[in-house]
């Protein structure tokens, strides 16, 4: 998972590449972890549900630097997680690309889990039960029923997870260490430019971030709009 620095690239382009890699890998991991977690939460009856939901939502309210500070401690060779990582990979976890990916996964988790959980909760049991009676495996049921119906929520979850990770600053600041080509992401590069009075370069990054985020978010809302009709159709189909 190491990003090899390219010497000739402009530092800001390098930061952009690192950012996209970080956000891309984070989103993939988030979808893989977030989907079962959201399903589990949607179907959970126990009272512990509230607690787990609160735990997932925690990054929404905690200052990123708090999360980052604890992660810095945990990732250092002083503590068990950092030690285990170092023994398994031979590399130190703190100040590595892997570290900022793990940090981003935790930090963006609610943005992926919450839309998926909502979608799964709205999904009626009747369809799934019918499919199960007809002999469809759990695997089949997920890919032929759940996924097509909740497709829009999956797109929302993935895009929000991605966009939020791109915009992340505090966590990466704490556990990244500003290493070009590895942990220096756009938001950090932007901060450096502002602090160094390099406002022209800072403006370029800010404007591109604003525009690309706006485009991405608009796309999510665009994609989300027709789905409501689809769900009504689906219900109509069931009712009819």
């Amino acid at each position, binding site marked *: 998972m190491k990003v090899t620095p390219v010497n000739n690239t402009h530092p800001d382009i390098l930061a952009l590449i690192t950012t996209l890699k970080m956000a891309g890998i984070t989103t993939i991991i988030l979808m893989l972890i977030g989907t079962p977690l959201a399903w589990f939460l949607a179907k959970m009856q126990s009272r512990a549900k509230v607690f787990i939901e609160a735990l997932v939502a925690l990054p929404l309210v905690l200052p990123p630097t708090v999360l980052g*500070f604890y992660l*810095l*401690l945990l*990732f*250092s*060779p*002083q503590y068990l997680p*950092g030690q285990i990582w170092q023994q398994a990979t031979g590399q*130190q976890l*703190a*100040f590595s690309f892997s570290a900022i990916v793990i940090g981003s996964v935790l930090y963006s988790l609610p943005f992926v889990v919450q839309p998926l959980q909502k979608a799964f909760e709205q999904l009626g049991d009747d369809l799934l039960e019918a499919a199960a009676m007809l002999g469809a495996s759990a695997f089949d049921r997920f890919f032929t029923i759940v996924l097509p119906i909740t497709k829009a929520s999956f797109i929302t979850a993935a895009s929000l997870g991605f966009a939020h990770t791109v915009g992340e600053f505090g966590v990466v*600041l704490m*556990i990244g*260490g*500003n*290493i070009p080509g590895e942990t220096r992401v756009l938001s950090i590069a932007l*901060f*450096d430019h*502002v*602090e*160094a009075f390099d406002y022209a370069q800072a403006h370029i990054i800010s404007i591109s971030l604003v525009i690309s985020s706006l485009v991405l978010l608009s796309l999510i809302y665009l994609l989300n709009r027709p789905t409501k009709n689809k769900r009504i159709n689906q219900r109509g189909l069931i009712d009819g």
Partner: protein
Amino acid sequence: MSLLLTRALASFIFIVLLFLSSTDVRAKNTLGFDDKPLRIAVASNFAPTLTKLLARFNLNQENFPKPIIIAASSGTLFLQIQHGASFDVFLSADTKRPQLLTTADLAVKDSQQTYAYGALALWSAKKEITTDVLTALKNNQHRLAIANPKIAPYGKAAKQVLEHLQLWDSYKTRLIQGINIIQTFQQTRSQAVNLGIVSNSQLVLNHFKGVLIPSHFHQPIKQQLVILKRSKNIQQAQRFVSLLMSKQAQQFIAESGYAKLNGMKDEGNTRE
């Protein structure tokens, strides 16, 4: 159920309001001490020293205004001042920002002066360094934490140290760069990085033992201040500055891990 919810919400709002009003009263009490508090914007690295210094010397002064310390990075404070923040004095960690404020006519004329010289130390939170700086840096095969040379004065000096020792080329690809010297200290303290070039004052403050880096390895880290023109409290601000520049206060600052002023020529700040 909804009644319960409304009640819960109402009591929550009540508690919040109660909290807000109580903090308001407290603020008034401390502010009512003198007619106007003195708002001192200070670079984070100097904030602990300033707090201690004020606690010690403030009491001797009659009618000294209640100081309010606003600590942040010099860059952040500079931006805030540029955009109208109402501070009375600005203690920066560098010379560039006070100079810019003077040029922009935001600072009181001739108020710009050096109040402290930063000192660097090589430090490991893992094990005590027993050799000299050069040997320790040469033997280290791992990463090194320094403040970002582009934005932090202490980082710039750390880079000069590495260049002076002809180690910059070997280190430049394995540097962990903190946004300021405080983050570098924190990163080294967490042991997430073995070795760091930190500010000596942080070690003194926290009773850690590092190796002092000789000051001729880098250009002096001048920390300068300005009194801000926008201040409605310029007279009191000037009193504060002369307190800060007094022999006893300067002695205290040196004891707090900053470099000594003597032997360095400065714009006639040191009396005697």
